[in-house]
């Protein structure tokens, strides 16, 4: 009897120890990644200075130059993708929230969740077939369209959930004033769900600013020209990193590390405030 209790307590200790170790193993890579990127990236940013942010790509084996075109491209692509994707996403999200029991409403919700997990390379290939082939060239607009499709389900699902989380009494109160459904939604509910919807918008933006796969065959990439028009190829930071990592030149690898540091900073600057403010809301 004593022996079996001791065994049980030993098992408990072993169990606690192992899940603690596995928990550390889960988050350890994040710190290793951040550490590696800072160790490799900070010297590049210091050595490159302002020129690294504004200049154009150096020739192979010849210094750092800059990643200006990729930075400009990422901002243009993200902005255009938001312009295209957000209206569709928000209205679709409102539909799913307003008609949750209708066939289309339910199907929409399911479709959005499927699209959230959909391989993004397939979106890129699709847009290539639809836009790039007829136009005959990679273009900023094709890249933006691709990113808009990737962004859309995130924003729509967040909008839907933000609206669903409003206590029913607000909706009932608004209807009892004799407002039409459109007014109830746009004047009352969207106002109340503003924070949730904004969260979705920012998450969507943070997501697509770091996307690579949907841009591979749509944006085309540009590292020496800043911006040449919507119908011309454009660069993006993730795309540049992907291309540079595959090159054999040491200076290109350095640039890739510097660009990764910058991308990580952009992502954290967008993501951390949202994530931390959510905690406030929850608690």
């Amino acid at each position, binding site marked *: 009897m004593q022996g079996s209790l001791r065994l*049980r307590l030993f*098992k*408990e200790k072993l*169990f*606690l120890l192992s*899940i*603690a170790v*596995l*928990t550390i193993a*889960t*988050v350890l*890579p*994040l710190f*290793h*990644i951040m550490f590696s*990127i800072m160790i490799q990236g900070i010297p590049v940013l210091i050595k490159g200075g302002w020129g690294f942010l504004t200049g154009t790509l150096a020739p192979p084996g010849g210094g750092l130059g800059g990643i200006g075109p990729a930075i400009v491209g990422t901002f243009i692509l993200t902005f255009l993708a938001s312009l295209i994707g957000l*209206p569709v996403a928000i209205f*679709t999200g*409102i*539909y*799913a929230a*307003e008609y949750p029991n209708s066939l*289309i409403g339910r*199907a929409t919700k*399911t*479709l959005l*969740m499927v*699209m959230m*997990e*959909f*391989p*993004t*390379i*397939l979106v890129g*290939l*699709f847009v290539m*077939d639809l836009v790039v082939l007829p136009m005959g060239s990679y273009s900023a607009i094709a890249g933006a369209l691709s990113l808009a*499709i990737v962004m859309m389900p995130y924003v*729509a699902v967040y909008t839907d959930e933000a609206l669903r989380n409003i206590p029913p009494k607000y909706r009932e109160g608004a209807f009892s004033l004799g407002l039409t*459904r*459109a007014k109830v939604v746009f004047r009352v509910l969207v106002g109340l769900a503003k924070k949730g919807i904004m969260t979705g918008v920012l998450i969507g933006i*943070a997501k697509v600013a*770091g*996307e690579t*796969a949907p841009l*591979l*065959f749509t944006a085309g990439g540009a590292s020496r020209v800043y911006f040449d028009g919507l119908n011309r190829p454009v660069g993006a930071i*993730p795309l540049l*990193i*992907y291309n540079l990592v*595959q090159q054999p030149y040491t200076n290109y*690898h350095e640039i890739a*590390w510097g660009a*990764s540091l910058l*991308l*990580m900073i952009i*992502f*954290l600057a967008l993501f951390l405030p949202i*994530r931390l403010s959510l*905690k406030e809301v929850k608690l």
Partner: protein
Amino acid sequence: MKREVGHIDTFKYFLLPFCLFVFGLFALMLAVYFSASIPIFQHEGLKIYTTNVWRASENPNKEFYGVLAAIYGSVYTSVLAVLIALPLSISFAVFVIDYAPKKIKEPLIVATDVMAGLPTIIYGIWGAFVLVPILKKYVMDPLYAHLSFIPLFSFKPVTGYSYLSAGVLLGIMVTPFASAIIREAYRSLPFMYREAIYSLGATRYEATKILVKEIKPAIVAGLLLAFGRAIGETVAVSLVIGNTFNISPSLFAPGYTISSLIANQFGNAFIYKYMVSALFAAGLSLFFIGLAVNILGILILRRYGHAR
């Protein structure tokens, strides 16, 4: 009365086009993949999925493509990722909900949320320049040196770019995602269960074992969705998998995945008559695998959510 109904409908009909647009987009995507795959099906039938050949040629009659190696690699690396994610994500969820000191609970969750959202190219550059050398030096080389008679370890790790590297990197990437789903389910278990179990004199190990059994559907769903995410991942994988047409049981052999095949070959595919179509056919298979896995995962989650 009638007018009121009319009001409701105008709003619905204003929103409806946006919904239909999304459905139309998805349907169009499927249609594009089907129609773009037709030439290769006419050229060689289903052999595109059942053979491992990649013969590009100026002469269209000599062209022949089989993407079996890529499908194999996709499934192999994603299974590895899920095997890694399984113990990690469950342990993390249990530890963070029940046992972590209050002070580090929230930081741990924030850390995994950052991991789930981190641009995948960042995993890619870290994987290619940091993870692969570590795995080669500390895992592949010793295992090959001592245990190469086991088929799993039988391939000499020359570069380190391999199924194992891709599987480990994917495992790291999808664990936070799977863990978030498991965590939510574990958190929502009624507190009464815990009280009841502990009142019977169970140890914490025994209690957790019973509680984890309760959320089995969420674990299955979380891992399915993690599998779906792993199989669709492109750039991080393509930087560490080695990009070689290869079907090998060995963990240390380089290979291809469907998405890395597309990323790698599409650039020069237009020179040939059938290669673009072959790559779309490969994409079509990824389309269906991704769709099936994700729908299944979502359905399980939904049924589970209703059941509670």
